């Protein structure tokens, strides 16, 4: 595509959020980028920081994706790459579910409509979620991109995301000249990522579902930004960056493991009791645990990232445990800090004398490369 020689104009939606803001800062530093246009319904909460060193200029447009004003922006800046990050589980202003759904689905439809009319657009990157696979006991343990879930998500954000993916597939059929990438992210964590699951992990005591220990996967926000950057540029030789890719750190953590690493005690309750608590917490605006999150925290979900590593050519820098460790380090210590529990067992081992202490491997807690 010839645009890369002239310089690329990137339009990013959802820049008021943390991930959007980080992606904008990163993509502005990329060589060959002429201009970055940010779009969101609200101005960013934090002022846009000017990156050190050479960076492409940045324009922000406050507009609602549900209105057709976007066509004008696309034409005005001659946008050729659209990065759609505003499909999100929570609304920016309102937490009203129907408003969030409308902004996700109708917003995407409007955006795709505008892109279809804009001949200059040559690349589209859409942020989706691994939630499109749902969480069910009767599904395969590891989802690859090709697997159709037996129990597709019945509502909530995951359903929005699968509807959005459907519209994106339609768009890709109608505009075969546009390189389309759909990135299905696992739960994004990081020192200051504001994802719904981090709210849950901030609770002093974690209610869990009795008799279930779900497998969870995380992706670090640094990796999320890196994957988005890679998808929004020309593919490197030998790799393909169009299509659908699962994005998750390698490895798996069980919920019980997460709680122990965070140092937070768990409170196993029967499923109906947990559902009831979740409803209560939502109504009192205490914590927003949606039904689909509850399903995730019951049955878990793991995706296969072979395609990301081999076809897309990106190996996440953080594994799932490392990403979670980074997230945990940014939180305050819980009621049962692992260091303290370890110290108790170490002291007991030390009491056993040198024989005992020799048998205790003093492993580092957070292997970081």
């Amino acid at each position, binding site marked *: 595509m010839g645009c890369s020689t002239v310089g690329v104009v990137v339009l990013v939606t959802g820049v008021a959020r943390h991930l959007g803001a980080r992606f904008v800062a990163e993509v502005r530093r990329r060589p060959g980028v002429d201009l970055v246009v940010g779009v969101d319904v609200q101005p960013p909460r934090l002022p846009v920081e000017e990156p050190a060193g050479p960076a492409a200029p940045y324009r922000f447009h406050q507009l609602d994706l549900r209105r057709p004003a976007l066509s004008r922006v696309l034409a005005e800046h001659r946008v050729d790459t659209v990065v759609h990050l505003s499909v999100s589980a929570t609304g920016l202003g309102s937490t009203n579910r129907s408003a969030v759904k409308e902004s996700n689905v109708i917003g995407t439809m409007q955006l795709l409509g505008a892109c279809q009319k804009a001949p200059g657009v040559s690349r589209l990157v859409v942020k989706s979620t691994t939630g499109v696979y749902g969480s069910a*006991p*009767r*599904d*395969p*343990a*590891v989802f*690859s991109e090709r*697997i159709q879930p037996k129990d597709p998500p019945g509502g909530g954000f995951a359903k929005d995301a699968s509807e959005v993916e459907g519209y994106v597939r339609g768009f890709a059929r109608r505009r075969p000249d546009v390189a389309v990438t759909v990135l299905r992210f696992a739960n994004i964590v990081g020192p200051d990522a504001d994802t719904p699951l981090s709210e849950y992990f901030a609770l002093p005591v974690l209610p869990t*579902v*009795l*008799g*279930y*220990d779900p*497998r969870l996967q995380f992706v670090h926000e640094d990796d999320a930004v890196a994957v988005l950057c890679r998808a929004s540029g020309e593919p490197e030789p030998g790799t393909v960056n169009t299509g659908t890719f699962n994005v998750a750190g390698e*490895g*798996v*953590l*069980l919920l*019980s*493991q*997460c*709680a*122990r*690493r965070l140092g937070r005690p768990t409170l196993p309750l029967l*499923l109906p009791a947990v559902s009831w608590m979740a409803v209560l917490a939502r109504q009192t605006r205490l914590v927003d645990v949606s039904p689909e999150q509850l399903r995730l925290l019951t049955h*878990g979900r*793991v995706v*296969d990232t072979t395609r990301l590593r081999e076809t897309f050519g990106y190996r996440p820098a953080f594994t799932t*445990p490392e990403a979670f460790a980074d997230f945990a380090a940014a939180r305050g*210590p819980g009621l*049962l*800090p*692992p*260091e*303290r*529990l*370890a*110290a*108790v*067992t*170490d*002291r*007991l*081992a*030390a*009491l*056993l*004398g*040198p*024989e*005992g*202490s*020799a*048998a*205790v*491997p*003093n*492993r*580092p*807690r957070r292997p970081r490369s």
Partner: protein
Amino acid sequence: MSAAAENAPGRAKVIPIESAPSWTSPEGAGLADRLAGAVGGALSGPLGPAATRLFGKGWEGRAAEGLAFLRRRVTGDYEVDEFGFDRELTEEVLLSLLRPLAEKYFRIDVQGVENIPAEGGALIVANHSGTIPLDALMTQVVIHDHHPNRRHLRMLAADLVFVLPGINELARKAGHTLACNEDAQALLERGEVVGVWPEGFKGIGKPFSERYKLQRFGRGGFVSSALRARVPIVPCSIVGAEETYPMIGNVRTLARLLGLPYVPITPTFPWLGPVGMLPLPTKWTIRFGEPIATDTYPAEAAEDPMLVFDLADEVRETIQHSLYQLLVQRRSVFF
């Protein structure tokens, strides 16, 4: 360890632990210190010889290993694979709990464990019986204990297992996963030993009168998985499990109400209540037969239904034949 003991000067000495810098709460530290002092004093003083006599020589080492295990568990410092298999928990706890049942209770005689490859994927196909999948769990124990490479059997279980709370958690941690093509193939391609009981509920829930008669082998999906992954199929015959819970009746209405495949009636259950849930102490034999190679078939063989059915039949015949052989050789059900 003995070398370390000789080099070290003192015994009950508190060693500063680097990895525990945040010993923040003074109250907690005081309590732990006092506790440590008391226990340490007692062990180095009067209780030391008593403990040695009670737990045998080298109890300190074992206690230290136990503490190290506890330390990893309470801090979450262990790994599980994508399927939720918790190797450490399985080896240290789950298999240890099942081992007495395999060794002392059923006194399992294991034959042909060398037919399971030393490394790389393999698909173990076995007959199913006994109302409760004890046969599958016992197979997992004997493969781990008798195989020179201490391999772990990754079982493909019915979806009912993953719907039940508690059971699904344990099953995942023990390395089992849902019986579906995707999971079977993923595990085989990773070079795991995968176990499948293709008779399913038809086999495990069959009446006692039909014991050791192999039921239909489903759709033969396990053969396609083995063909795709190009791993050998190891037929496995289990004798003795049929008589653990002789099923003489089935409460169909209750089963339908509870959403279970069957609710068994045995000579002891439900009449004797919880005692009736004890399996009968039968003598078991588990024999692993000659592996059936699948890498001689072309790549597209997995899509050929005739070949898949033929292979499934071959495996089934082999298991049935070996079952009859073992039954003829068996002296009695219990000895």
